[in-house]
């Protein structure tokens, strides 16, 4: 940027920009703190592993952003992911099963489970919270039945590649993450479907009266979430080269925290996919930083909770400052 355009920005403009993109500000603060307090943070290796760490949550985060923006919620995402992981493990055991078939089956299962959640909630007019609370148990039980309670190794090489592969110097999960973010952002802000989602989150009655198919859109949103869950399941299993039965326990809470910190409100009606990327980065930086600082894993849990709490409070607070500043001009 040259100095001529720089001069146009006042201090207020910069403040407004960061208030609008609060999660980006948090990312910068954390990064600066970590690069000052550790010598290992700002190394290519660490940054790449950070990107890989957040890639799984970020892919689901894209689907979850749409879901939260439509004023819905899904508690079953973690166990759904785990179950799909187990399914991919079982399919890997079948002789001659091509990777593409496994991928396709997993995606179809994800989409079906997601649609099922939304379908039941719509059909019986139940809050998605309760439906997915129950479904979470069903998924958990199913995955235990399928796996007999023990992890499955010997995965298809394609799955391993999804978790551990590289294209050039860049890990494959990171490439996947970037693709999902890009496609998600375009769907969200540039298509009719994205607009429908925000409208439904803002006022479902008004949306319906304006000719938007509310039930249809909600089911589609959940199906898309299911697809992102399926892809993430393969990435996560591939990374450890085995389908674990304990995968995804904390996933839902981390993702909700990331999406909300990213700027999509719990009540729906607006949202940002790119913000979710920054939200995931914030969560990732917390784990990464605490690891680098050699904080014990139990303390890590506590401090992670505290930091998320502070981040959310800051979020609400800066929203108010932003409103006040807009009010002034």
């Amino acid at each position, binding site marked *: 940027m040259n100095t001529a355009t720089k001069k146009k920005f006042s201090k207020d403009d910069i403040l407004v920009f960061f208030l609008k993109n609060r999660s980006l500000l948090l990312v910068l603060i954390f990064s600066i703190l970590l690069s000052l307090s550790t010598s290992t943070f700002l190394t290519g290796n660490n940054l790449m592993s950070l990107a890989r760490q957040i890639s799984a949550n970020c892919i689901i985060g894209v689907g979850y952003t749409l879901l939260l923006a439509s004023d819905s919620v899904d508690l079953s995402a973690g166990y759904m992911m785990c179950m799909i992981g187990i399914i991919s493990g079982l399919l890997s055991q079948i002789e001659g099963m091509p990777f593409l078939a496994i991928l396709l089956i997993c995606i179809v299962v994800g989409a079906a489970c997601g649609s099922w959640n939304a379908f039941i909630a719509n059909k019986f007019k139940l809050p998605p919270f309760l439906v997915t609370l129950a479904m979470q148990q069903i998924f958990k039980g199913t995955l235990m039945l399928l796996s007999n309670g023990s992890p499955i190794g010997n995965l298809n090489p394609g799955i391993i590649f999804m978790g551990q592969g590289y294209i050039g110097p860049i890990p494959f999960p990171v490439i996947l993450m970037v693709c999902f973010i890009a496609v998600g952002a375009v769907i969200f802000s540039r298509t009719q479907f994205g607009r429908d989602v925000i409208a439904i989150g803002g006022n479902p009655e008004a949306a319906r009266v304006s*000719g938007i198919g509310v039930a249809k859109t909600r089911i589609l949103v959940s199906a898309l979430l299911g697809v992102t869950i399926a892809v993430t399941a393969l990435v996560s299993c591939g990374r450890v080269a085995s389908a674990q039965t304990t995968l995804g326990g904390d996933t839902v809470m981390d993702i909700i925290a990331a999406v909300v910190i990213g700027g999509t409100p719990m009540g729906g009606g607006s949202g940002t996919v790119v913000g979710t990327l920054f939200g995931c980065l914030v969560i990732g930086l917390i784990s990464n930083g605490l690891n680098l600082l050699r904080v014990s894993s139990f303390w890590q849990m506590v401090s992670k909770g505290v930091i998320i709490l502070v981040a959310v409070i800051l979020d609400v607070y800066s929203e108010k400052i932003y409103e006040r500043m807009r009010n002034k001009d």
Partner: protein
Amino acid sequence: MKLLEAKGINKRFYSTCALSDVDFDLEEGEVLALAGENGAGKSTMMNVLLGIHRPDEGAMTLAGRPYAPKGPHDALQQGISMIHQELRLVPSMTVADNVWIGRVKNFSSGGIYFPERCVEASRKLFEEYGIELNPKERVANLSVAQMQMVEIARAVSYDSKIVIMDEPTSALSDKEVEVLYKIIRRLSAAGKSIIFISHKLEEVFEIADRVTIFRDGRKISTQRVADITMTDLINGIAGREVKDLYPKLDVPRGEKVLEVRGISKAGTFSDISFDVHAGEIVGFCGLVGAGRTEIMNGIYGIDPIDSGEVLLEGRPALSRTPRQALDHGIAMVTEDRLRRGVIVKMNVKLNMTLAYFYKICRGTFIDRRRETRDASDMIKTLRVKTAGPEMPIWSLSGGNQQKVMVGRALLTRPKVLILDEPTRGVDVGAKSEIYQYCNQLAKEGMAIILISSDLPEVMGMSDRLLVVREGRIVGRHSRGEATAEQLMAEMFGLSSTTQNTEGSSK
């Protein structure tokens, strides 16, 4: 004696001036009406009185002492309560609980709440003011008018020195309006002051002692109601001569566009038949709850009908969802703007293009340039007062939000436009603008259905009038062939033989 006095109040939002240098006073025991267009500053002034907004400049006194409320709760404790235009009730609680909300302590002993005491207190209050409500009924089961009465009862229950009523009659039928008038007269006789905001100017003359007119954030005048005429009042509000409130044009009647044949829905309406031609405005009158809105919801697919036929240009056009109706070319501006209309979190542009943007998608992508252009054009056409299409919808006044809703329907390029109470809570100027635009649309060949509880309005605007009572059409009249008294008699079911003055069209 002056009970409340405000001097030199200034208030700005963003870059617009909401109140500039307003002096305002209220005497003890009087009914003061506030008149003015939407966005003239009435609501802002009331929000200042309630402490929702802090004025940028100016000072107030209440009963001679300085008054600077910190918020509605503080205002309430200093003796000012308000009936809000939008209902603020908890549907899952009883009438009594809603009336006495936040005051559970009054009905508790040793921390235990005794609901029956609360019910008893409500019963006494209702009796005193002639309100017909069952205190034990759940609010969710009430009609909108009854909910409004709960709001009124709540405001009265605080025994405040000043009661502010913001459009209290907009959801009430004539019978309940009478009850409200009685309540107001009682309060005033007991030395309480009332600030009464209404767009129905007849009500100002009916109930108020004085009237204060606001325009563009300024106070224009305060006069005794006895000293002025309706024309004075209208001209004061509009700031210009409004010659004809209902500027109906005579438009030649075109082809039959919409034909409704014997549609019914169990428990709400039965055997409704009518048709609407191009260039025609067909008005529906009836009491609140007579079934007018339900019939339109049936045609528009919000609550699908049980039986009967709907034809559009001779082809079947039965709609089971609003989307189907829009695809057929039927658009509707719904009555309940907050629940079924605006999306508060979206800006003006997105609210306006909500119903039509699926028509301008190139493939799966929204044609955003065209969307912005169409929205801006519509803002200009309807003269929506806003700083720009990107402004949040809540920054607009009620009348301008309503224009956005009309714009949303019109952007779908409908053949039939259904307007359900399009001017409720809308000021004289915007009303007249909306109607002039309706005329324009009719001239261009649109078929329009108009529902309004404002009798002079629907009589003035419609080519034909249909009267609905208890889910049936009980009267059909051509323009100018029925008097207001006749229509009222039909609406209330007073005349034993319903007349049919509709001429040649049958």
